[in-house]
């Protein structure tokens, strides 16, 4: 009984805050997403329709944005994982004197404002940016590569921005792998590669799952970076929702998109954690 009370007291303040400023407003949006919107008039009262949701599936433009968002989320997650795992491995298993400098190097970008970091990528990736200028001047390419306002630009920028989260999750996971268990595999005849694939990798699965979920969710819901590196035309769901609300004032459509994004995110998180758990034999 006292345990239960302590639990309520500990969790209570956060629960109240989340309920008041997150759950209630979100639920208030639910009816809005089923209303009709008429340009120039606004939300039509007492009109109920599924059209806002149907459009996301049937309209080519909306469908493309949804797929692009998911593809971007997946791409950024995979590249963060591929780039982050070796770094995390080096931090945990490398020489002790490299541990602090490497960790600082990973965390340092988080201290810079998101807008500044995104703007930095504009300076690097634009048609007359540093990368293109360098490649043209060295004669490797004739015309500038299109590195912005497309998937490439978003992938590069967002992988950089979310990499620290992935690395920190993987560092925690790798620190939890007992060295004796790896040594046991080695004495049983496993080469270093086999020790990694058969022991280290499955035992870090929880970290891989949580890191991937974190990066995926942050990516598909990101607004500032896609806005800056994607420009006004190359849209993802978050920027589309923003425009529906703030520029078109089409709240019903924006609400429907918001709910769809949330449902998709939850479904993918659920499915991927199920799959990974089976793979790691934890189910």
């Amino acid at each position, binding site marked *: 009984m006292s345990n239960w009370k302590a639990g309520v007291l500990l969790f209570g303040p956060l629960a109240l805050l989340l309920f008041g400023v997150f759950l209630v407003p979100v639920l208030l949006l639910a009816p809005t997403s089923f209303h009709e919107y008429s340009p120039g008039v606004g939300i039509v009262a007492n009109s109920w329709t599924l059209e806002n949701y149907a459009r996301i599936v049937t309209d080519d433009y909306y469908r493309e944005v949804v797929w692009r968002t998911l593809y971007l989320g997946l791409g950024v997650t995979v590249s963060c994982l591929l780039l982050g795992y070796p770094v995390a491995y080096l931090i945990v298993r490398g020489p002790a004197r490299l541990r602090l400098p490497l960790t600082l190097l990973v965390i340092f970008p988080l201290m810079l404002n998101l807008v500044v970091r995104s703007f930095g990528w504009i300076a690097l990736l634009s048609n007359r940016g540093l990368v293109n200028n360098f490649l043209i001047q060295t004669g490797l390419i004739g015309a500038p590569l299109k590195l912005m306002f497309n998937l490439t630009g978003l992938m590069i920028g967002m992988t950089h921005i979310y990499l620290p989260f992935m690395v920190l999750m993987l560092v925690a996971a790798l620190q939890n792998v*007992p060295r*004796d*268990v790896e*040594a*046991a*595999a*080695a*004495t*049983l*005849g*496993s*080469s*270093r590669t*086999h020790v990694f694939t*058969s*022991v280290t990798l*499955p*035992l870090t*699965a929880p970290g891989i799952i949580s890191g991937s979920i974190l990066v995926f969710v942050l990516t598909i819901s990101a607004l500032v970076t896609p806005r800056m590196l994607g420009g006004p035309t190359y849209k993802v769901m978050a920027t589309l929702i923003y425009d529906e609300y703030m520029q078109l004032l089409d709240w019903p459509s924006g609400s429907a998109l918001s709910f769809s994004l949330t449902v998709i995110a939850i479904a993918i998180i659920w499915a991927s954690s199920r799959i990974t758990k089976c793979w*790691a*034999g*934890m189910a």
Partner: protein
Amino acid sequence: MSSLKLDHLSKHYGEAVIVRDLSLEIANGEFVSLLGPSGCGKTTVLRMVAGLIAPTGGKITIGEREITVLPPNKRRIGLVFQSYALFPHLTVFENVAFGLRRQGVKGVELEKRVKDALALVRLDAFGDRYPRQMSGGQQQRVAMARAIAPRPDVLLFDEPLSNLDAKLRDEMQIELKRLQRELGITTLFVTHDQAEALSLSDRVCVMAHGNIEQFAVPEDIYHRPATAFVASFIGKPNRLPGKVASRNGAGGTVEIGCGLTLNADRLDVAAGGEVELFLRQEAIELRTTPAEAPANSIPGTVQLRSFSGAHVQYVVRIGAGTEIVVEAPSSGAASNLEKDASVFLAVAPANVFALAAKGARS
């Protein structure tokens, strides 16, 4: 088939010497324990044999194969860890099958050999479980099955029983001994528990500060300690400073102050030399009448009595300020002595260990 030979093995970390020029030969099928206090280098030796730590110098040979620089997976050894180190993401069956799969064993043969290994540790029915669903003792038996299933040339144990509670430890000791005798695999067993080392091993190697203090059969380690360190480490010794009064053949007489002397069967120090005397609590008999020669007989008074089940411990004062602890069987004649009772301590000269003070643990 496969003896294990360590040849002038050493390990330094910068200035710190962990293992110093250590040579050791274990015959095929022999069970040898490395016994010593923590920090004596015994685990480092084991890990060098396993290939988990690279030696600074020396050579390791299994049978005719020199393995000093081979990676662990090429050494054909089985290692059982203190922490069990089972694969938490694999079932018991897959844990045991791990090493066999690495050797390319598959199908019916694999199934049979895993079953056989599990049967040896009496866990036949547990193949489908995960390690976390098992008790500590069961997990350690899985770890043993996993180590023996690939039929290694040498088995290594790194304090495998010290995470288990006392009763389970005794059971596992017997099981381990039975298993090793049955399989006849050359075994190196690291422990800090002397009873474990003495009861399991064919020979015991007592280590201190990276050196071998004594390498002998358990009876010799117990009854004929070679150095002051071994005498102080094995059993529950009382420790007294003394001076050799006279020599008599291999033995002699030692003065321990207050006009008291003790005869010892073996004495390596010349007359007039300083020695340390070790009298085991359990090797002293408490009597109410003086003991007959040739046994030493020292008068004293009981200071304290403490009953602990099978034994009664007495603190007995001899001479002016020396106190000796004596352990008497609680069913014996000397089980119920009162405080201040006058007694005689009877010690056979064979049980008086008088050794040069150098190298003793302080």
